[in-house]
Each structure stands twice: as structure tokens, then as C-alpha cells.
């Protein structure tokens, strides 16, 4: 049976100064999937995630997120079902981690008690104790990245969009934090270093020159002895090409 989709894009296009970054991307990510999204050139995956979260305006096409067509006027109730961590953290560097989490909680319309409960849990899970009440800039990129993920996870989102996150943390700690629990939580993880995401994902997708080249299960790579790298995923696409009927113009 077809699982319901958490992310659906239809003919999504993005042109930047005449160059096609996305050229009609049709992607369907089922609920509960952990998708690794890689691209060649690098910036296409990042652009797709930024479009999904509303930071970039697509040149054409449409998409649904968490079952709802995206809209700027979407209420906080819908917004808090979506989490996003990008390359740039975006919050004010003079805010302390506690203030950032409190602000995220307030904007999600949680009352004081609920905010406190969620923030306390986040402080413990993301190990924010040292420097909790000092400006986040004093903790450097590792602290800022932890806080960014903690703020994104504060609302326990159904769809988590991650754009090459937590690069300043050591590999073990990064894997611990990115292995977010929840069987019905959908994670789309854009990455420039696919090999470092092993163990975090169960699906892979490759955007090649702005088009969706392949979207497959992680296990298919392993079955064919291919590594979880850009080249490995591209090789899988080549192997599957004859067997997969392509629509005209696809």
C-alpha cells in the first residue's frame, strides 16, 4: 500500500540569473522516511530545502508539506509541524541559547509551562548546559549548531528539513543528535558529504543538473555493493535506468 506523503513537489523550478538550479523536480517523500538528498551542483539540494521552508521563491511548480500546500499565511499550528536547520543559523548572536529556545517556543504559541518543559528537555538532550545564559556567539559554531537543531526540534515537528547540519560537531555526537526518534517523523537531509550520513537515512535521492535523477531505497545501494557517495548513487541511477521507464521529457 502506498504510504501517505509528507513532502510532495510537482514540477518545481528555480532559476537564478538565468541558470536553472531546479528544473521540474517531482519528488514524493513518504511519511516516516529518512531521505538523503544530494545534488550536483551542490546548491540544488540546499535550494530545494529552502524553497520547501519558504525562504526561496520557486520560479514554477508547486509543493505540499505535511499534507498542506505551503503558504505564507499558514498559521503557527501548521508551521510548528515543520522544522528546518540551514547552513546559517539566522538567530541573533547576542541571544543566549535559553532565550533562543524561549523565543522559538513563544512563536510556536506555547504557554510558559509548556515552554519550560520543552526547553528543559532540549537543554538536557542537546547538552546546552555550559553557556546556556551567555550569548550564543561565545560558544562558537558548535554551540550555535546545537541550538539551531534544538530550536527546530522544540516543536516536535512532523517534517524535519536539514541542510548539511552540525558540521562543526564530531562525527559520533553529530550522529547521536541527527538520529532523531519518531516513526512518523519525516527527515529530509541535504548533504554535501553523503558518506557521513550512513546510518541516518533509509532513502537516497540525487538531483543532477536540476532534475531528479534517482530516488531509491538506501538498501538498493547496499544490495549492489555501492557506497553511499554521490558517485555511488549516480551509479545506481545508471544501473536502474534501463529498467525504469521514463516519461517523455523526464
Amino acid at each position, binding site marked *: 500500500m502506498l504510504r501517505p506523503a509528507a513532502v510532495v513537489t510537482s514540477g518545481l523550478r528555480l532559476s537564478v540569473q538565468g541558470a536553472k538550479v531546479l528544473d521540474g523536480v517531482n519528488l514524493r517523500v513518504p511519511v516516516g522516511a529518512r531521505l538523503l538528498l544530494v545534488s550536483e551542483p551542490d546548491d540544488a539540494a540546499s535550494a530545494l530545502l*529552502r524553497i520547501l*521552508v*519558504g*525562504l*526561496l*521563491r520557486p520560479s514554477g511548480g508547486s509543493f505540499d508539506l505535511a499534507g498542506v500546500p505551503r503558504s*505564507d*499565511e*499558514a*498559521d*503557527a499550528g*501548521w*508551521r*510548528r509541524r*515543520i522544522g*528546518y536547520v*540551514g547552513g*546559517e*543559523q*539566522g*538567530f*541573533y548572536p*547576542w541571544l543566549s541559547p535559553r532565550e533562543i529556545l524561549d*523565543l*522559538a517556543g*513563544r*512563536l*510556536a504559541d506555547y504557554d510558559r509551562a509548556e515552554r519550560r518543559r520543552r526547553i528543559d528537555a532540549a537543554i538536557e538532550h542537546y547538552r546546552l548546559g555550559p553557556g546556556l545564559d551567555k550569548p550564543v556567539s561565545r560558544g562558537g559554531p558548535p554551540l550555535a549548531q546545537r541550538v539551531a537543531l534544538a530550536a527546530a526540534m522544540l516543536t516536535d515537528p512532523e517534517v524535519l528539513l536539514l541542510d548539511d547540519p552540525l558540521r562543526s560537531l564530531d562525527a559520533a555526537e553529530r550522529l547521536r543528535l541527527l538520529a532523531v526518534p519518531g516513526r512518523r517523523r519525516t527527515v529530509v537531509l541535504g548533504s554535501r558529504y553523503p558518506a557521513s550520513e550512513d546510518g541516518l537515512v533509509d532513502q537516497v535521492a540525487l538531483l543532477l543538473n536540476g532534475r531528479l535523477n534517482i530516488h531509491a531505497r538506501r538498501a538498493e545501494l547496499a544490495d549492489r555493493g555501492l557506497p553511499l557517495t554521490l558517485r555511488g548513487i549516480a551509479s545506481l541511477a545508471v544501473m536502474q535506468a534501463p529498467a525504469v521507464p521514463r516519461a517523455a521529457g523526464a
Partner: protein
Amino acid sequence: MRRFGTVTGLALRELWISFRLLLVVGVLVAAAVPSAMLPHTTPALAASPLESPLEWFAIGLALALGVVGGMAGAALSRERRRGSAGWLVIRAVPRAVILLGWFAAFVLLLVAGLLPAATLVWLTVAAPASDVGDAWPFLAPMIGTWAAGAAAVAIGLLLGTLLTPWPAGLLTMLVTAGLLLIAVVGIAPQLSDAPAPAAGLAILGDLPNQARPVGDALRASGSSLVVAAVALILATAVLGRADL
């Protein structure tokens, strides 16, 4: 409404942390210093070609409002580029609310800066030259000045949605300070006539010769606020389509 208050608070705190809040208030107060102090201490300056210390005050304010408008433009542009605006948008803060929050922050700072500046000039220049009990002829042009400042801030925010910080700041400063100066000095009479947005400053600078300073200044305030509203509407439309 709660989100608007949150954004305004964040904007004020950002301006305070970066010392720009002090700069905004400082340039407005500094605009009052020459007209309030120098004529009394430096007789040569008192005999300058400018008709009155109030004209110096108006020129100082024109320059100061240009600086404030430029700072508003640079501030919003910086918010976009740093990702702070994006961080808020992801959390259900509408783009228009971000814009209005920054507008409100700067308009509040205009009040905070213009109040001491006006008080200083009133006590040293305006009150001794008129009936102290009737402050309206001075207060009304000050309201017009505040409204002209609000328009400068709104124009700055509009340019801040389009340009990078330095170009947005410099262009806003040049345009708004230039127009206000032209109005005050009287190079273009149509700018200093009562309903024009910059006329509040022109009336302030030429206060002793004004027949209806209160009514004319309030009309000028209205047209300044219309300019501010139009600029904000345009800025909202542009920001709505901008990449964050």
C-alpha cells in the same frame, strides 16, 4: 499583535546591542546643539546668513533624519542577509510583521531622539522669542518633522528590501536628506509648501515668518505619513517576493 511586539522588541534590542540605538538618538540630539548653543556662545555664528537658529535646527534635523533613514535601510537589508528574517519567517512570523516591527522600532527611536532635541531648542531658542505659554507653533512643526522622519525610515526599509546594506543605507541617506535639505533651504518651493511631506521641517526652519504654522505643519505631517504608508506597502510587496 504578539508577534509584532516580539519583532519590535528584538529590533530595539538589536539596535541597542550594536550601539545603533544610541547613534540614532545621538544624531537627533546633536542636530539641536548648534542652534541651541552656538549663537549664544559664538557671536560670529549668530550673524551668519541663516535667518534664525531654528533654520540651523531644521538643517541639522534634515541631515539627522537622512542618517536615521539610512540606518533603517541598512538594518533591514542586514536582517535579510544574516538570516534573522528567515529564522522568524520559518516560525510563522509574516514578512509584513517583520517589516512593521522594524518600522515601529525606528519610529519609537525618532520620538526618543526628537523629544530631547526639541526640548533643548525650545528652552534656548523658541521660548524666549515667543509667548512661552503657546508652544503649539513650535510643537506642530516638530510633529511634522517626526512624520517626515517616519517617511524617511519607510523609504529606507523599502530600499533595504531591494539592496545590500551599504547601498541601501547610503542611497536612503542621500535621497531623504537631500529632499529634506532642499525643502528647508527653499531651493524647491513646492517641497516647502504646506502639504508637501518635507514641509514640516521647512516650517520649523522659517517659523518666525509663518502665518499658519500649526495648520500647515499638521497638513504636512499627514502627507508625510501617506508617503510612509505608500513606501511600507511597496516594501511589503517587495519583501513578500524576496529570497530570505
